[in-house]
């Protein structure tokens, strides 16, 4: 039983990186499909399309970040060994959930918005600024989830 705490924390880290990463992967994929369509007409838009395609990629980074924090917290990345009881492990697991869940869904939603904005710059390349802002509106909620995950992780006492 003494390993269970650590393993719960590892599960949390895995969920954070896995789900947020999947959300980003789907989102970036959706945006990429749309971008490829645009570039068949105008390959010169590669730079703009790449920028917009990259936007839903941040959830994956936030997930990775949270996962990293989580395993750092329980001492799996070098440093002094920490003894983690089941409750603390559960705490870490729960703390990882906000970014796992919000990262997954917001990544997909942001991908759709990015895809739509890629369509927009195909017709109006001068409006790139606005096209970049709309997907960022979606990302707000991933940022908030990341914030909550970090605050929760930070508040678990060992």
């Amino acid at each position, binding site marked *: 039983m003494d390993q269970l705490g650590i393993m719960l924390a590892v599960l949390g880290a895995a969920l954070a990186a896995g789900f947020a990463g999947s959300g980003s992967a789907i989102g970036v994929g959706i945006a990429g499909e749309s971008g490829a369509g645009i570039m068949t007409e105008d390959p010169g838009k590669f730079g703009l399309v790449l920028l917009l395609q990259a936007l839903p*990629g941040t959830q994956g980074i936030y997930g990775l*970040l949270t996962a990293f924090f989580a395993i750092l917290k329980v001492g799996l990345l070098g440093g002094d060994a920490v003894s983690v009881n089941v409750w603390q492990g559960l705490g870490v697991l729960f703390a990882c959930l906000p970014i796992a869940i919000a990262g997954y869904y917001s990544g997909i939603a942001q991908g759709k918005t990015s895809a739509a904005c890629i369509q927009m710059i195909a017709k109006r390349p001068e409006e790139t600024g*606005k096209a970049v802002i709309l997907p960022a509106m979606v990302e*707000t909620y991933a940022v908030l989830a990341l*914030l909550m995950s970090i605050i929760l992780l930070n508040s678990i006492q060992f």
Partner: protein
Amino acid sequence: MAVARVKRVRILSHHDILEDVVASLQALGCCEIIRSEESDGITRERSSPPSESTGSGTGSRGLPRLETDLSDSRFILRFLEPLFKEEGGMLERLLGPKPPVTISELNSMMEKTDLQGMAADARSLERRISEMRSEISQLSNHIQLLKPFKDLDLPMWIVSRGTEKLRGVMGTLPSSKSCSLKDSFLDIIEGQGDIYIAPYSEKEQETMAVLVFQRSLEQQVMESASLSGFSRVDCPQGIEDTPQEEIQRMTSLRETLYGSINKAESESLTMAAEWVPSVRKIYDLLVVVAARHDAGSSGESSEKVSSLDLWVPSDKIRELESSLKPYSTLLDVNIDDPRPGENPPIILDNPGWASPFSPLTKLYGMPSYDGIDPTVVMAPFFFLFFGMCLGDGGYGLVMGAFFLFALVRYRLSGDTRNFFMLLLLGSVSSILVGAVTGSWLGDMIDVFGVFEPIRALKNSVVMIRPMNDPITFLAISLALGVVQILFGILIAMWDAFRKGDIAGALGDQGGWLALIVGILVWGASSFGIGGNGVLFAGKALSAIGAITLVATQGRDKPGVIRKALSGILSLYNITSYLGDVLSYSRLLALGLATSAIAMIVNTLTGLVSGIPYVGWMLAILIFFGGHLFSVVVNVLGAFIHSLRLQYVEFFSKFYSGGGRIFTPLKFETRYTRITGNGIEETVN
């Protein structure tokens, strides 16, 4: 907070000098043409200025000729530009200084160049290449079609043409049905014909067959064949010999075509190298002249006189007058203020320190003519927020070095320069925030032994460590949010006062200010700050604010009950203010994300450096690759999110765009920079 004042200028000019007047205006580059349709709605005949009366070379070029020249040069550039090797690379052309030329130089170049001939050559070359391409693809299709029959020893004209009595048919069929097709076919023809089924492997679902039979039996044969799933494929005309011979013939023909295409393509490469530089210049000239023509015909014109209506910034009027002086005998200039109800174009007039931020205002939308220019009030917030979101001294240095290099190397101008300056300022802000939070490429200075000597120096300026104490940093972020939002409300209040809407200023903005500040004071005192007096002040202020809002927010509604209801419901908007403030928590989150990603890179570098033999190599790779990735991702995130805070949280309090950007008549060139006064000095 300034939108530059503009004047409405009307120039009445004799036709003889109209071209030259427009050319001087274009060289001046500060006059926007008012199209008469939109300015007063009078429908009129659109008359182009008489061109034969002018003396200059480009001017005498008729409008139809100008348009064909434009489309010729556009075509040449579209066809040849992708093949042209840029001197010094793409970046140099996009960002580098454009070569200076004068209109006369361009004109004499234009005279010497046979644009039409070049365009004709280029068009025929392009057509030749595309014809050869389509021929090649046709040949490939035919080869593909005949391949299954390469062992068939039957001249294909029987299939493609047939004789009076004999008929050949080619087609596909499911491979499983090949036996049944063969049996039924042999039954019908009774020895007078033949069938060939192409060999197929077990995996192939479909195969091909050729049937040869007497014409009289055609209907019968086709009916029975279609029962076996046979579906006819037309044999292309011109295929005569046996499949083997035809394949050989077509393959060698295809090889020849490939050779010719290669030749034509290398021809177009030389063409590109020879022509693109001069055609680019000519294209610029044509665009300039076309803009002139367009401007010259924008106003009304009578037999001898044309009018030009212009928007000109007030501070440029003197320049305009002096540049028109040479023509003063033949023209009349009339300067006016914008008429009420008119919608003049917008020029942002900001002090030098704020001008790097003006692209951000343009991105959102220009202010209206008597609105507020948000650039100056937004600038300090954007500067600080960008720094907090990036929040790393090392990344700030990397980014700053990059943009400083670009600024110095390419001598940029206009909005590109503003934008690069903005990012340079952002990097300065990031270095400051990084120093205060002790983040230099994350925790690099703490984890790598080489940095031991500067550790103390780094720590000496650190004031807060967001990694260890996120709550304090969160509080700072939210406090900044409150400050910016209250500031936004204050600006709106000032704007309302300025416009004389006292009730709106006190009711809308005053009410919210009182309520929000009151609640904040109340909250602060309940955390033990200040005594009972503060608590009472907070409560009183909130009450005053709430009462004001309830009393005023329904003032447009009829009837006491609906007024009261709207008033009370408006209090619900407090949630949107709450949401706005919480949105500023991203300052902490993004700053933390930067440091944490940098920390991950450093940790991984430390981990792999322990691997024997290759560890140092991996460590270098991960360190530089990782930090490069991190700086790109984080700069993008920092920019977008600090911009969003301005647009969504700040601008929504006081700013609405809706203005039209000032687009003066000027030298709109893509490849060159036109110097001189734009009028030809030489006589052609």
